[in-house]
C-alpha cells in the first residue's frame, strides 16, 4: 500500500508515519500544493497512492481544496468512483462545518481529530478495508 501523508508540521508527519509505516510505504508532503504535485506525479508514473492522510490548515493550499483536486485528478483520468484513493482528513479542527465539508464535499472517507490515538488511526484503516477487517461480509 502507498500512503501520502500531508501536514505542514514535520512533527505531525513523523507521528503519523510511525503508525502508518507498519502498513505501507509512506511519502510526505508539507502543504496542499505539494500533495497535488506528488499525487499527479504518482498517477503519471502509473503508481498512485492508495491512501491520502490530509491536514486542513496548511500554507499555500489548504487540505479541503487539495483533496478536492486530488479526487478530480483521478476522475479526469477516467478512474472509477469505487477505485478512487481512500482519504482520511486528520485535523485539529473539530467543528461541524469542517467535518461535514471534508466528508460530504471534499471526498474524505473518514475524519480523525488531533491529537489522535494510534488505535483510532488503525481503526480507520480497518474501516476502509486497507488492513484486515475482522467483521465478516455476511448478508444480514
Amino acid at each position, binding site marked *: 500500500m502507498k500512503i501520502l501523508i500531508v501536514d505542514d508540521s514535520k512533527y505531525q508527519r513523523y507521528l503519523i508515519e510511525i503508525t502508518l509505516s507498519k502498513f505501507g510505504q509512506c511519502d510526505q508532503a508539507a502543504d496542499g500544493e505539494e500533495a497535488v504535485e506528488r499525487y499527479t506525479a504518482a498517477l503519471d508514473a502509473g503508481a498512485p497512492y492508495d491512501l491520502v492522510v490530509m491536514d486542513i490548515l496548511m500554507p499555500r493550499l489548504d487540505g479541503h481544496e487539495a483533496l478536492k483536486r486530488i479526487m478530480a485528478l483521478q476522475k479526469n483520468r477516467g478512474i472509477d*468512483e469505487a477505485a478512487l484513493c481512500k482519504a482520511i482528513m486528520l485535523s485539529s479542527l*473539530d*467543528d*461541524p462545518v469542517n*467535518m*461535514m465539508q471534508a*466528508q*460530504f464535499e471534499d471526498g474524505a*472517507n*473518514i*475524519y*480523525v*481529530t488531533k491529537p*489522535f*490515538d494510534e*488505535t*483510532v488511526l488503525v*481503526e*480507520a484503516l*480497518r*474501516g476502509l*478495508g486497507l488492513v484486515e*477487517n*475482522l*467483521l*465478516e*461480509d455476511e*448478508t*444480514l
Partner: protein
Amino acid sequence: MKKVIANYPGIQELFLMSGDGGVYTSPTAVQTVLGSCVAVTFFCPRWHIGATFHALMPHRDKDIDGVYRSVDSAIQQICASLFNQGVKQHEIECKVFGGANAMFQHELSVGPKNVQAAFEALASYPLRVVASHVGGQLGRKIVFISNTGEVFVRHIQRNHFGAP
C-alpha cells in the same frame, strides 16, 4: 461478528434496532446496521462505560414516541445518563457513523442531515468527536465494544443496502 467477539471472551452481544440505544456499564458488543441513519458511540476511558444509539431522523418530532429515534434527543438522553453516573463531559470520546446518501442523490437526502444534527448536538456541549465515518453511497455494519470504545466498521454492498 464471530471473529470480533472471539477477541473479547465473556462479552455480551446485542443487536441494536433502529430507534434504539442505551448506556452499557458491563462489557457489551453492540452491533447495528446503518444506511442513512446515524449511530454515535460514547466512551469514557476512566470508567470503561460506553453508550450508543441508532437514530433515523435529525430532530425530535414530539408526536413520535421514542427518544432514540431522533439524533438530537438521543444525544441528550445519553449525555444525561452518563452525567448521572458521574462521567464528566471532558472524559467522553465520541465517534459518529452512518449518514449514507445512496438512496437519494439530491441535497434533501436525510443522511447528511442526520450527520449534521449529530455534529451540531455534540458541539453544543461540547463533546469531542475523535473520529467520524459518514456519508458515501454504501451502508455500514458497525460493532461497538462498550468497555474499550473500539468500533469495527464494514461497508455493506449495494445489494445489502436495506437499513434505514
